[in-house]
Protein backbone atom coordinates (compact mmCIF):
# COMPACT_ATOMS: atom_id res chain seq x y z
CA UNK A 1 0.00 0.00 0.00
CA UNK A 2 2.71 2.37 1.06
CA UNK A 3 4.74 1.52 -1.98
CA UNK A 4 1.81 2.27 -4.26
CA UNK A 5 1.39 5.63 -2.54
CA UNK A 6 5.06 6.43 -3.01
CA UNK A 7 4.82 5.56 -6.66
CA UNK A 8 1.93 7.92 -7.06
CA UNK A 9 3.84 10.70 -5.33
CA UNK A 10 6.79 10.15 -7.65
CA UNK A 11 4.50 10.12 -10.64
CA UNK A 12 2.94 13.45 -9.64
CA UNK A 13 6.36 15.00 -9.07
CA UNK A 14 7.50 13.96 -12.53
CA UNK A 15 4.29 15.30 -14.05
CA UNK A 16 4.72 18.66 -12.36
CA UNK A 17 8.34 18.79 -13.42
CA UNK A 18 7.56 18.20 -17.07
CA UNK A 19 4.67 20.65 -16.85
CA UNK A 20 7.05 23.25 -15.48
CA UNK A 21 9.49 22.73 -18.32
CA UNK A 22 6.83 23.17 -21.00
CA UNK A 23 4.85 25.96 -19.37
CA UNK A 24 6.74 28.62 -21.32
CA UNK A 25 5.51 27.28 -24.60
CA UNK A 26 2.02 26.37 -23.53
CA UNK A 27 0.34 29.13 -25.48
CA UNK A 28 2.58 28.81 -28.51
CA UNK A 29 1.56 25.80 -30.52
CA UNK A 30 1.56 26.56 -34.21
CA UNK A 31 0.10 23.70 -36.21
CA UNK A 32 2.79 22.04 -38.32
CA UNK A 33 2.27 21.57 -42.05
CA UNK A 34 3.89 18.67 -43.84
CA UNK A 35 5.65 19.53 -47.07
CA UNK A 36 4.81 16.83 -49.58
CA UNK A 37 7.36 15.95 -52.23
CA UNK A 38 5.54 14.84 -55.38
CA UNK A 39 6.42 11.25 -56.34
CA UNK A 40 9.58 10.98 -58.39
CA UNK A 41 10.75 14.52 -57.63
CA UNK A 42 14.16 15.29 -56.13
CA UNK A 43 14.62 16.49 -52.54
CA UNK A 44 13.94 20.23 -52.15
CA UNK A 45 16.95 22.45 -51.53
CA UNK A 46 15.22 24.79 -49.07
CA UNK A 47 16.30 24.07 -45.49
CA UNK A 48 12.94 23.55 -43.76
CA UNK A 49 14.62 22.84 -40.42
CA UNK A 50 15.40 26.56 -40.11
CA UNK A 51 11.82 27.54 -40.94
CA UNK A 52 9.39 24.70 -40.17
CA UNK A 53 6.14 25.12 -42.07
CA UNK A 54 3.04 25.90 -40.00
CA UNK A 55 -0.54 26.92 -40.68
CA UNK A 56 0.04 30.20 -38.86
CA UNK A 57 3.21 30.97 -40.80
CA UNK A 58 1.39 30.38 -44.07
CA UNK A 59 -1.51 32.67 -43.06
CA UNK A 60 0.92 35.45 -42.14
CA UNK A 61 2.97 34.93 -45.30
CA UNK A 62 -0.09 35.12 -47.49
CA UNK A 63 -1.29 38.26 -45.72
CA UNK A 64 2.10 39.88 -46.37
CA UNK A 65 2.19 38.70 -49.98
CA UNK A 66 -1.09 40.45 -50.73
CA UNK A 67 -0.48 43.60 -48.64
CA UNK A 68 0.24 46.71 -50.69
CA UNK A 69 1.64 48.51 -47.65
CA UNK A 70 4.89 46.65 -48.29
CA UNK A 71 5.57 48.99 -51.19
CA UNK A 72 6.99 52.46 -50.98
CA UNK A 73 3.88 54.24 -52.16
CA UNK A 74 1.32 51.76 -50.87
CA UNK A 75 0.13 50.84 -54.36
CA UNK A 76 1.78 47.50 -55.05
CA UNK A 77 1.75 44.20 -53.27
CA UNK A 78 3.75 41.16 -54.33
CA UNK A 79 0.42 39.86 -55.58
CA UNK A 80 -0.09 42.76 -57.95
CA UNK A 81 2.92 41.69 -60.01
CA UNK A 82 2.58 37.96 -59.28
CA UNK A 83 -0.97 36.95 -60.15
CA UNK A 84 -2.32 33.51 -59.42
CA UNK A 85 -4.23 33.06 -62.69
CA UNK A 86 -0.92 33.65 -64.50
CA UNK A 87 0.87 31.07 -62.31
CA UNK A 88 1.99 34.07 -60.24
CA UNK A 89 3.64 35.91 -63.11
CA UNK A 90 2.50 39.33 -64.29
CA UNK A 91 -0.23 38.06 -66.55
CA UNK A 92 -0.03 39.33 -70.11
CA UNK A 93 2.67 41.92 -69.44
CA UNK A 94 6.18 41.95 -70.84
CA UNK A 95 7.44 44.15 -68.00
CA UNK A 96 5.74 44.59 -64.65
CA UNK A 97 4.40 47.96 -63.69
CA UNK A 98 5.55 49.11 -60.32
CA UNK A 99 8.11 51.36 -58.85
CA UNK A 100 10.39 52.90 -61.37
CA UNK A 101 13.31 50.59 -60.78
CA UNK A 102 15.59 47.92 -62.16
CA UNK A 103 13.08 45.14 -61.55
CA UNK A 104 10.82 46.40 -64.26
CA UNK A 105 13.49 45.82 -66.88
CA UNK A 106 12.68 42.14 -66.61
CA UNK A 107 9.61 39.97 -67.03
CA UNK A 108 8.12 38.67 -63.78
CA UNK A 109 8.50 34.87 -63.81
CA UNK A 110 5.80 32.58 -62.49
CA UNK A 111 6.27 31.55 -58.88
CA UNK A 112 6.00 27.85 -58.11
CA UNK A 113 8.17 24.95 -56.98
CA UNK A 114 10.51 27.48 -55.35
CA UNK A 115 11.54 24.96 -52.70
CA UNK A 116 13.65 23.26 -55.37
CA UNK A 117 15.32 26.44 -56.51
CA UNK A 118 18.64 27.54 -55.06
CA UNK A 119 19.02 30.94 -56.66
CA UNK A 120 16.38 33.45 -57.67
CA UNK A 121 15.86 36.10 -60.32
CA UNK A 122 16.77 35.75 -63.99
CA UNK A 123 20.44 36.28 -63.11
CA UNK A 124 20.37 34.16 -59.93
CA UNK A 125 21.49 37.14 -57.87
CA UNK A 126 19.50 36.18 -54.79
CA UNK A 127 20.83 33.17 -52.94
CA UNK A 128 18.06 32.42 -50.45
CA UNK A 129 14.29 32.49 -50.75
CA UNK A 130 13.93 34.32 -47.41
CA UNK A 131 15.90 37.21 -48.91
CA UNK A 132 13.73 37.54 -51.99
CA UNK A 133 11.14 39.99 -50.57
CA UNK A 134 13.89 42.46 -49.73
CA UNK A 135 14.61 43.16 -53.39
CA UNK A 136 11.16 44.32 -54.48
CA UNK A 137 10.45 46.00 -51.15
CA UNK A 138 13.59 48.08 -51.21
CA UNK A 139 13.11 48.80 -54.91
CA UNK A 140 16.47 50.48 -55.21
CA UNK A 141 19.62 48.62 -54.47
CA UNK A 142 20.34 49.95 -51.06
CA UNK A 143 17.42 51.89 -49.67
CA UNK A 144 17.67 50.87 -46.06
CA UNK A 145 15.43 53.71 -44.95
CA UNK A 146 12.44 52.17 -46.65
CA UNK A 147 13.05 48.87 -44.90
CA UNK A 148 12.68 50.67 -41.63
CA UNK A 149 9.39 52.24 -42.56
CA UNK A 150 7.90 48.93 -43.68
CA UNK A 151 8.68 47.25 -40.38
CA UNK A 152 7.30 50.17 -38.43
CA UNK A 153 4.11 50.15 -40.53
CA UNK A 154 3.63 46.50 -39.65
CA UNK A 155 4.51 46.99 -35.99
CA UNK A 156 1.86 49.62 -35.54
CA UNK A 157 -0.80 47.25 -36.88
CA UNK A 158 -2.56 45.29 -34.19
CA UNK A 159 -3.60 42.49 -36.50
CA UNK A 160 -0.03 41.93 -37.70
CA UNK A 161 1.25 41.79 -34.13
CA UNK A 162 -1.26 39.01 -33.50
CA UNK A 163 -0.32 37.15 -36.68
CA UNK A 164 3.40 37.35 -35.89
CA UNK A 165 2.76 36.10 -32.38
CA UNK A 166 0.70 33.19 -33.66
CA UNK A 167 3.41 32.24 -36.14
CA UNK A 168 6.56 32.88 -34.10
CA UNK A 169 5.54 32.92 -30.44
CA UNK A 170 5.93 36.63 -29.74
CA UNK A 171 5.15 39.97 -31.32
CA UNK A 172 8.64 40.79 -32.57
CA UNK A 173 8.46 42.01 -36.16
CA UNK A 174 11.72 42.06 -38.07
CA UNK A 175 13.01 41.25 -41.52
CA UNK A 176 14.04 37.78 -40.62
CA UNK A 177 10.46 36.95 -39.69
CA UNK A 178 8.98 38.75 -42.68
CA UNK A 179 11.29 36.73 -44.93
CA UNK A 180 10.50 33.45 -43.22
CA UNK A 181 6.76 34.02 -43.25
CA UNK A 182 6.81 35.02 -46.89
CA UNK A 183 8.77 31.86 -47.66
CA UNK A 184 6.15 29.79 -45.86
CA UNK A 185 3.63 31.00 -48.40
CA UNK A 186 5.93 30.82 -51.43
CA UNK A 187 7.22 27.33 -50.60
CA UNK A 188 3.72 25.90 -50.61
CA UNK A 189 3.11 27.07 -54.17
CA UNK A 190 3.78 23.62 -55.56
CA UNK A 191 2.61 22.93 -59.08
CA UNK A 192 2.63 19.18 -59.76
CA UNK A 193 -0.79 18.38 -61.08
CA UNK A 194 -0.70 19.11 -64.78
CA UNK A 195 -1.81 16.61 -67.39
CA UNK A 196 1.88 15.79 -67.89
CA UNK A 197 2.14 14.84 -64.20
CA UNK A 198 -0.98 12.73 -64.43
CA UNK A 199 0.44 10.91 -67.43
CA UNK A 200 3.68 10.31 -65.55
CA UNK A 201 1.70 8.93 -62.61
CA UNK A 202 -0.26 6.68 -64.95
CA UNK A 203 -3.55 8.47 -64.29
CA UNK A 204 -4.03 9.84 -67.80
CA UNK A 205 -2.55 9.44 -71.26
CA UNK A 206 -1.32 11.83 -73.92
CA UNK A 207 -3.25 12.19 -77.15
CA UNK A 208 -1.12 11.64 -80.22
CA UNK A 209 0.13 15.22 -80.88
CA UNK A 210 1.05 15.57 -77.20
CA UNK A 211 2.91 12.27 -77.27
CA UNK A 212 4.82 13.24 -80.43
CA UNK A 213 5.52 16.66 -78.94
CA UNK A 214 6.88 15.01 -75.79
CA UNK A 215 9.26 12.92 -77.85
CA UNK A 216 10.52 15.97 -79.76
CA UNK A 217 10.83 17.86 -76.48
CA UNK A 218 12.98 15.11 -74.98
CA UNK A 219 15.27 15.25 -78.00
CA UNK A 220 15.63 19.00 -78.40
CA UNK A 221 14.77 20.75 -75.16
CA UNK A 222 15.51 18.67 -72.04
CA UNK A 223 19.22 19.51 -72.29
CA UNK A 224 18.16 22.70 -70.51
CA UNK A 225 14.46 22.39 -69.63
CA UNK A 226 15.05 19.15 -67.72
CA UNK A 227 12.20 17.10 -66.25
CA UNK A 228 10.52 17.11 -63.79
CA UNK A 229 11.14 20.81 -62.99
CA UNK A 230 11.48 21.70 -66.69
CA UNK A 231 14.64 23.61 -65.89
CA UNK A 232 18.08 22.46 -64.83
CA UNK A 233 18.56 25.80 -62.98
CA UNK A 234 21.63 26.70 -65.04
CA UNK A 235 22.32 30.00 -66.80
CA UNK A 236 22.53 29.97 -70.59
CA UNK A 237 22.74 32.31 -73.50
CA UNK A 238 20.06 31.40 -76.02
CA UNK A 239 21.06 34.08 -78.50
CA UNK A 240 18.70 36.88 -77.56
CA UNK A 241 20.39 39.99 -78.98
CA UNK A 242 21.20 42.62 -76.35
CA UNK A 243 18.47 45.21 -75.89
CA UNK A 244 20.51 48.40 -75.79
CA UNK A 245 17.85 50.37 -73.92
CA UNK A 246 18.53 48.35 -70.76
CA UNK A 247 21.86 46.63 -71.56
CA UNK A 248 21.03 43.69 -69.33
CA UNK A 249 24.10 41.46 -69.19
CA UNK A 250 22.32 38.79 -67.11
CA UNK A 251 24.45 36.44 -65.04
CA UNK A 252 27.58 38.49 -65.69
CA UNK A 253 26.14 41.25 -63.52
CA UNK A 254 26.37 38.84 -60.58
CA UNK A 255 29.61 36.97 -61.26
CA UNK A 256 31.54 39.73 -63.03
CA UNK A 257 32.73 36.98 -65.40
CA UNK A 258 32.80 37.80 -69.14
CA UNK A 259 31.95 34.17 -69.90
CA UNK A 260 28.58 34.73 -68.24
CA UNK A 261 27.66 37.61 -70.51
CA UNK A 262 24.01 37.44 -71.72
CA UNK A 263 23.28 34.26 -69.79
CA UNK A 264 19.94 33.98 -68.03
CA UNK A 265 18.37 31.32 -65.87
CA UNK A 266 16.64 28.55 -67.80
CA UNK A 267 12.98 29.17 -66.90
CA UNK A 268 10.67 26.33 -65.94
CA UNK A 269 8.13 25.61 -68.64
CA UNK A 270 5.47 24.45 -66.22
CA UNK A 271 2.28 26.49 -66.79
CA UNK A 272 4.01 28.03 -69.81
CA UNK A 273 0.69 28.48 -71.62
CA UNK A 274 -0.24 30.99 -68.91
CA UNK A 275 3.05 32.84 -68.43
CA UNK A 276 3.23 34.77 -71.71
CA UNK A 277 4.89 36.99 -72.73
CA UNK A 278 8.18 35.10 -72.69
CA UNK A 279 11.90 35.60 -72.24
CA UNK A 280 13.71 37.47 -69.49
CA UNK A 281 12.46 40.81 -70.76
CA UNK A 282 9.16 39.53 -72.08
CA UNK A 283 10.12 40.23 -75.68
CA UNK A 284 8.30 37.18 -77.12
CA UNK A 285 4.56 37.56 -77.20
CA UNK A 286 3.70 33.97 -77.99
CA UNK A 287 5.13 30.47 -78.03
CA UNK A 288 5.29 30.79 -81.79
CA UNK A 289 7.65 33.75 -81.52
CA UNK A 290 9.84 31.74 -79.14
CA UNK A 291 10.04 28.95 -81.71
CA UNK A 292 10.80 31.44 -84.49
CA UNK A 293 13.60 32.71 -82.30
CA UNK A 294 15.07 29.24 -81.72
CA UNK A 295 14.97 28.27 -85.38
CA UNK A 296 15.62 31.61 -87.16
CA UNK A 297 16.21 34.81 -85.24
CA UNK A 298 18.84 33.67 -82.76
CA UNK A 299 22.12 35.57 -82.84
CA UNK A 300 24.93 33.12 -82.15
CA UNK A 301 27.62 34.94 -80.19
CA UNK A 302 30.72 33.97 -78.19
CA UNK A 303 28.76 32.89 -75.09
CA UNK A 304 25.83 31.27 -76.88
CA UNK A 305 25.18 27.79 -75.55
CA UNK A 306 26.93 24.83 -77.17
CA UNK A 307 23.57 23.15 -77.69
CA UNK A 308 22.43 26.05 -79.83
CA UNK A 309 25.48 26.78 -81.98
CA UNK A 310 23.50 25.78 -85.08
CA UNK A 311 20.24 27.20 -83.73
CA UNK A 312 17.42 24.64 -83.33
CA UNK A 313 16.04 22.91 -86.35
CA UNK A 314 12.26 22.88 -85.96
CA UNK A 315 9.73 22.17 -88.69
CA UNK A 316 6.25 23.69 -88.64
CA UNK A 317 4.93 20.23 -87.91
CA UNK A 318 7.26 19.85 -84.90
CA UNK A 319 6.25 23.26 -83.60
CA UNK A 320 2.61 22.16 -83.65
CA UNK A 321 3.37 18.98 -81.71
CA UNK A 322 5.64 20.80 -79.25
CA UNK A 323 2.94 23.34 -78.58
CA UNK A 324 0.43 20.58 -77.90
CA UNK A 325 2.87 19.05 -75.43
CA UNK A 326 3.66 22.36 -73.70
CA UNK A 327 -0.06 22.88 -73.10
CA UNK A 328 -0.12 19.68 -71.06
CA UNK A 329 2.09 21.48 -68.52
CA UNK A 330 -0.77 23.71 -67.41
CA UNK A 331 -1.79 22.85 -63.87
CA UNK A 332 -5.30 24.21 -63.46
CA UNK A 333 -5.61 22.81 -59.93
CA UNK A 334 -2.73 25.08 -58.97
CA UNK A 335 -3.99 28.10 -60.90
CA UNK A 336 -7.35 27.88 -59.13
CA UNK A 337 -6.24 26.63 -55.72
CA UNK A 338 -8.27 28.73 -53.29
CA UNK A 339 -5.60 28.40 -50.57
CA UNK A 340 -3.41 30.77 -52.56
CA UNK A 341 -6.06 33.36 -53.37
CA UNK A 342 -5.88 36.80 -51.74
CA UNK A 343 -7.22 36.83 -48.16
CA UNK A 344 -10.98 37.23 -48.36
CA UNK A 345 -11.17 35.90 -51.92
CA UNK A 346 -10.73 32.23 -51.03
CA UNK A 347 -14.30 31.33 -51.88
CA UNK A 348 -14.59 33.59 -54.86
CA UNK A 349 -14.54 31.70 -58.13
CA UNK A 350 -13.62 34.83 -60.08
CA UNK A 351 -10.15 36.22 -59.67
CA UNK A 352 -10.04 39.80 -58.37
CA UNK A 353 -10.00 42.48 -61.02
CA UNK A 354 -6.62 43.21 -62.55
CA UNK A 355 -5.28 45.55 -59.90
CA UNK A 356 -2.19 46.92 -61.59
CA UNK A 357 -2.22 50.11 -63.57
Amino acid at each position, binding site marked *: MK*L*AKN*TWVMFVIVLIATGWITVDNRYFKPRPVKFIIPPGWPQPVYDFSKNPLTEEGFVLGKQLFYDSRLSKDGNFSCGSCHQQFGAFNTYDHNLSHGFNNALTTRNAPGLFNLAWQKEF*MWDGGIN*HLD*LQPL*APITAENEMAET*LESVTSKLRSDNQYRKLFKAAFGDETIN*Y*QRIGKAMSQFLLQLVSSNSKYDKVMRGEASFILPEQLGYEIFQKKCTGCHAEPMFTDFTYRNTGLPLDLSVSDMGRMKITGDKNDSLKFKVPSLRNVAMTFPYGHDGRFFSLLSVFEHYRKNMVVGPTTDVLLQKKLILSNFEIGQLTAFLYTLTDSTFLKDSRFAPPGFENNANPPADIHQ
Partner: protein
Amino acid sequence: MKTIFFIFTCVLLISVTSMGFIRDGDNKIQQRQLALIFQHTMGGDKLVLGTPCKNILGENIIIEKFKYYVSNFSVTDNNGQITKLPAQYFLIDEADPLSKNIILTIPGASIKSICFLLGVDSIKNVSGVQTGALDPLNGMFWTWNSGYIMAKLEGTSEVSAAQGHYFTYHIGGFKNGMNTTRMISLELPEKEVRANQITITAEINQWFKGKSELKITETPVCHSPSALAMRIADNYSTMFSINAAH
Protein backbone atom coordinates in the same frame (compact mmCIF):
# COMPACT_ATOMS: atom_id res chain seq x y z
CA MET B 1 6.27 -1.72 -7.44
CA LYS B 2 9.58 -1.54 -5.72
CA THR B 3 11.47 -1.55 -9.00
CA ILE B 4 9.29 1.17 -10.52
CA PHE B 5 9.92 3.32 -7.49
CA PHE B 6 13.64 2.63 -7.77
CA ILE B 7 13.74 3.56 -11.45
CA PHE B 8 11.85 6.79 -10.83
CA THR B 9 14.25 7.80 -8.09
CA CYS B 10 17.26 6.99 -10.22
CA VAL B 11 15.98 8.97 -13.18
CA LEU B 12 15.20 11.97 -10.99
CA LEU B 13 18.56 11.82 -9.23
CA ILE B 14 20.51 11.51 -12.45
CA SER B 15 18.74 14.38 -14.16
CA VAL B 16 19.05 16.71 -11.19
CA THR B 17 22.71 15.99 -10.57
CA SER B 18 23.76 16.04 -14.21
CA MET B 19 22.29 19.53 -14.58
CA GLY B 20 24.49 20.57 -11.70
CA PHE B 21 27.56 19.09 -13.36
CA ILE B 22 27.05 20.94 -16.61
CA ARG B 23 26.80 24.25 -14.78
CA ASP B 24 29.98 23.54 -12.80
CA GLY B 25 31.92 22.59 -15.90
CA ASP B 26 31.24 25.93 -17.52
CA ASN B 27 32.76 27.88 -14.70
CA LYS B 28 36.06 26.03 -14.70
CA ILE B 29 37.81 28.17 -17.34
CA GLN B 30 38.57 31.60 -15.98
CA GLN B 31 36.86 34.22 -18.11
CA ARG B 32 37.23 37.98 -18.16
CA GLN B 33 35.88 40.86 -20.13
CA LEU B 34 37.86 42.86 -22.62
CA ALA B 35 36.56 46.12 -24.05
CA LEU B 36 37.67 47.11 -27.53
CA ILE B 37 37.35 50.79 -28.38
CA PHE B 38 37.44 51.54 -32.08
CA GLN B 39 38.60 55.00 -33.03
CA HIS B 40 38.84 56.42 -36.52
CA THR B 41 41.43 58.83 -37.82
CA MET B 42 42.23 60.67 -41.02
CA GLY B 43 45.90 61.46 -41.35
CA GLY B 44 46.31 60.95 -37.62
CA ASP B 45 43.55 63.40 -36.71
CA LYS B 46 40.28 62.27 -35.24
CA LEU B 47 37.76 61.68 -38.04
CA VAL B 48 34.85 64.11 -38.05
CA LEU B 49 32.05 63.26 -40.46
CA GLY B 50 30.91 66.05 -42.73
CA THR B 51 34.00 68.23 -42.39
CA PRO B 52 36.53 68.93 -45.16
CA CYS B 53 39.89 67.21 -45.02
CA LYS B 54 42.62 66.04 -47.37
CA ASN B 55 43.52 62.43 -48.07
CA ILE B 56 47.05 61.12 -48.41
CA LEU B 57 46.91 61.59 -52.20
CA GLY B 58 46.15 65.27 -51.73
CA GLU B 59 42.50 65.06 -52.76
CA ASN B 60 40.08 67.29 -50.85
CA ILE B 61 37.31 65.17 -49.39
CA ILE B 62 34.40 65.22 -46.98
CA ILE B 63 33.59 61.88 -45.40
CA GLU B 64 29.91 61.24 -44.70
CA LYS B 65 29.77 57.54 -43.82
CA PHE B 66 32.22 55.02 -42.48
CA LYS B 67 31.03 51.58 -41.39
CA TYR B 68 32.44 48.07 -41.32
CA TYR B 69 31.82 44.64 -39.87
CA VAL B 70 34.11 42.82 -37.48
CA SER B 71 33.45 39.20 -36.53
CA ASN B 72 34.94 35.80 -35.68
CA PHE B 73 37.28 36.99 -32.94
CA SER B 74 40.03 34.86 -31.51
CA VAL B 75 42.79 35.54 -29.00
CA THR B 76 46.26 34.07 -28.57
CA ASP B 77 47.77 33.72 -25.11
CA ASN B 78 51.44 33.85 -24.13
CA ASN B 79 51.90 30.15 -24.83
CA GLY B 80 50.64 30.55 -28.34
CA GLN B 81 47.35 28.87 -27.45
CA ILE B 82 44.61 30.20 -29.78
CA THR B 83 41.04 30.42 -28.49
CA LYS B 84 38.18 31.07 -30.85
CA LEU B 85 35.50 33.18 -29.22
CA PRO B 86 31.81 32.39 -29.73
CA ALA B 87 30.52 33.68 -33.08
CA GLN B 88 29.63 37.36 -32.77
CA TYR B 89 29.13 40.04 -35.37
CA PHE B 90 29.58 43.75 -34.78
CA LEU B 91 28.84 46.64 -37.07
CA ILE B 92 31.21 49.50 -36.26
CA ASP B 93 29.68 52.77 -37.41
CA GLU B 94 31.44 56.12 -37.08
CA ALA B 95 28.04 57.80 -36.80
CA ASP B 96 27.00 55.67 -33.82
CA PRO B 97 29.32 56.16 -30.82
CA LEU B 98 27.88 53.18 -28.96
CA SER B 99 28.75 50.85 -31.83
CA LYS B 100 32.44 51.71 -31.44
CA ASN B 101 32.80 50.10 -28.03
CA ILE B 102 32.45 46.36 -28.00
CA ILE B 103 32.92 43.90 -25.21
CA LEU B 104 34.36 40.44 -25.62
CA THR B 105 34.55 37.67 -23.07
CA ILE B 106 38.00 36.15 -23.28
CA PRO B 107 39.76 33.33 -21.44
CA GLY B 108 42.92 33.73 -19.40
CA ALA B 109 44.53 36.63 -17.65
CA SER B 110 46.86 37.79 -20.39
CA ILE B 111 46.75 37.66 -24.17
CA LYS B 112 49.45 38.30 -26.73
CA SER B 113 47.41 39.05 -29.82
CA ILE B 114 43.91 39.44 -31.05
CA CYS B 115 42.57 38.31 -34.37
CA PHE B 116 39.31 39.03 -36.18
CA LEU B 117 37.63 38.92 -39.54
CA LEU B 118 37.04 42.27 -41.16
CA GLY B 119 33.68 41.50 -42.77
CA VAL B 120 31.10 38.72 -42.56
CA ASP B 121 32.04 35.10 -43.23
CA SER B 122 30.55 33.32 -46.25
CA ILE B 123 28.19 31.15 -44.21
CA LYS B 124 26.23 34.15 -42.99
CA ASN B 125 26.14 35.41 -46.57
CA VAL B 126 24.16 32.41 -47.74
CA SER B 127 21.86 31.74 -44.76
CA GLY B 128 18.90 33.97 -45.46
CA VAL B 129 17.85 36.95 -43.38
CA GLN B 130 19.73 37.59 -40.14
CA THR B 131 18.96 39.80 -37.15
CA GLY B 132 20.94 42.16 -34.91
CA ALA B 133 24.08 43.67 -36.43
CA LEU B 134 23.48 41.57 -39.54
CA ASP B 135 19.89 42.78 -40.08
CA PRO B 136 19.52 44.04 -43.68
CA LEU B 137 17.94 47.08 -42.09
CA ASN B 138 21.44 48.36 -41.37
CA GLY B 139 21.97 49.11 -45.05
CA MET B 140 24.95 46.79 -45.31
CA PHE B 141 23.28 44.14 -47.47
CA TRP B 142 22.94 43.95 -51.23
CA THR B 143 19.46 42.83 -52.12
CA TRP B 144 20.04 42.38 -55.88
CA ASN B 145 23.17 40.29 -55.47
CA SER B 146 22.82 38.63 -52.08
CA GLY B 147 25.66 39.37 -49.76
CA TYR B 148 26.98 41.71 -47.14
CA ILE B 149 28.81 44.95 -47.71
CA MET B 150 31.85 44.29 -45.53
CA ALA B 151 32.90 47.92 -45.31
CA LYS B 152 31.59 51.21 -46.58
CA LEU B 153 33.21 54.60 -47.05
CA GLU B 154 31.21 57.42 -48.57
CA GLY B 155 31.53 61.12 -49.03
CA THR B 156 32.05 63.87 -51.54
CA SER B 157 35.08 65.24 -53.28
CA GLU B 158 35.40 67.96 -55.88
CA VAL B 159 37.65 65.64 -57.89
CA SER B 160 34.97 62.96 -58.21
CA ALA B 161 33.43 62.72 -61.67
CA ALA B 162 30.45 60.78 -60.30
CA GLN B 163 27.03 62.32 -59.91
CA GLY B 164 26.92 64.92 -57.12
CA HIS B 165 30.72 64.63 -56.75
CA TYR B 166 30.11 61.59 -54.58
CA PHE B 167 32.57 58.87 -53.94
CA THR B 168 30.99 55.66 -52.69
CA TYR B 169 32.97 52.58 -51.84
CA HIS B 170 30.74 49.67 -50.88
CA ILE B 171 33.08 46.74 -50.55
CA GLY B 172 31.58 43.25 -50.59
CA GLY B 173 31.80 39.82 -52.15
CA PHE B 174 32.30 36.48 -50.40
CA LYS B 175 32.63 33.93 -53.19
CA ASN B 176 35.88 32.27 -54.21
CA GLY B 177 38.22 34.65 -55.95
CA MET B 178 36.07 37.63 -54.96
CA ASN B 179 36.20 37.22 -51.21
CA THR B 180 36.62 40.65 -49.62
CA THR B 181 36.77 39.50 -46.01
CA ARG B 182 40.21 40.04 -44.52
CA MET B 183 41.80 38.41 -41.48
CA ILE B 184 43.23 41.05 -39.18
CA SER B 185 45.78 40.11 -36.55
CA LEU B 186 46.99 42.66 -34.02
CA GLU B 187 49.81 42.16 -31.52
CA LEU B 188 49.25 43.72 -28.14
CA PRO B 189 51.99 46.02 -26.81
CA GLU B 190 53.83 44.41 -23.87
CA LYS B 191 52.13 46.52 -21.22
CA GLU B 192 48.65 45.92 -22.59
CA VAL B 193 48.55 42.14 -22.33
CA ARG B 194 46.49 42.28 -19.14
CA ALA B 195 44.51 45.41 -19.97
CA ASN B 196 40.75 45.34 -19.71
CA GLN B 197 40.42 47.92 -22.41
CA ILE B 198 42.23 48.27 -25.70
CA THR B 199 41.94 51.03 -28.26
CA ILE B 200 42.08 50.00 -31.90
CA THR B 201 42.66 52.78 -34.39
CA ALA B 202 41.50 52.65 -38.00
CA GLU B 203 43.31 55.12 -40.28
CA ILE B 204 41.20 56.03 -43.30
CA ASN B 205 44.18 57.06 -45.41
CA GLN B 206 44.96 53.35 -45.78
CA TRP B 207 41.91 53.06 -48.05
CA PHE B 208 43.63 55.39 -50.48
CA LYS B 209 47.20 54.21 -50.09
CA GLY B 210 47.40 50.89 -48.29
CA LYS B 211 48.96 48.44 -50.70
CA SER B 212 48.10 50.33 -53.86
CA GLU B 213 46.78 53.79 -54.67
CA LEU B 214 43.05 54.45 -54.94
CA LYS B 215 42.49 57.81 -56.58
CA ILE B 216 39.01 59.30 -56.30
CA THR B 217 39.77 61.08 -59.56
CA GLU B 218 40.05 57.72 -61.33
CA THR B 219 37.63 55.47 -59.44
CA PRO B 220 35.01 57.27 -57.38
CA VAL B 221 32.63 54.29 -57.17
CA CYS B 222 32.78 50.63 -56.21
CA HIS B 223 29.41 48.93 -55.80
CA SER B 224 29.82 45.25 -56.52
CA PRO B 225 32.06 42.26 -55.96
CA SER B 226 34.97 42.85 -58.36
CA ALA B 227 38.72 43.05 -58.75
CA LEU B 228 38.48 46.68 -57.67
CA ALA B 229 36.68 45.67 -54.48
CA MET B 230 39.43 43.13 -53.80
CA ARG B 231 42.08 45.81 -54.26
CA ILE B 232 40.33 48.24 -51.93
CA ALA B 233 39.88 45.48 -49.33
CA ASP B 234 43.62 44.78 -49.54
CA ASN B 235 44.20 48.46 -48.91
CA TYR B 236 41.98 48.86 -45.90
CA SER B 237 43.11 45.56 -44.39
CA THR B 238 46.17 47.57 -43.32
CA MET B 239 44.19 50.30 -41.53
CA PHE B 240 44.16 48.92 -37.99
CA SER B 241 46.69 49.44 -35.23
CA ILE B 242 46.71 49.28 -31.47
CA ASN B 243 47.84 52.39 -29.66
CA ALA B 244 50.53 51.64 -27.13
CA ALA B 245 49.96 54.85 -25.23
CA HIS B 246 47.15 54.80 -22.75
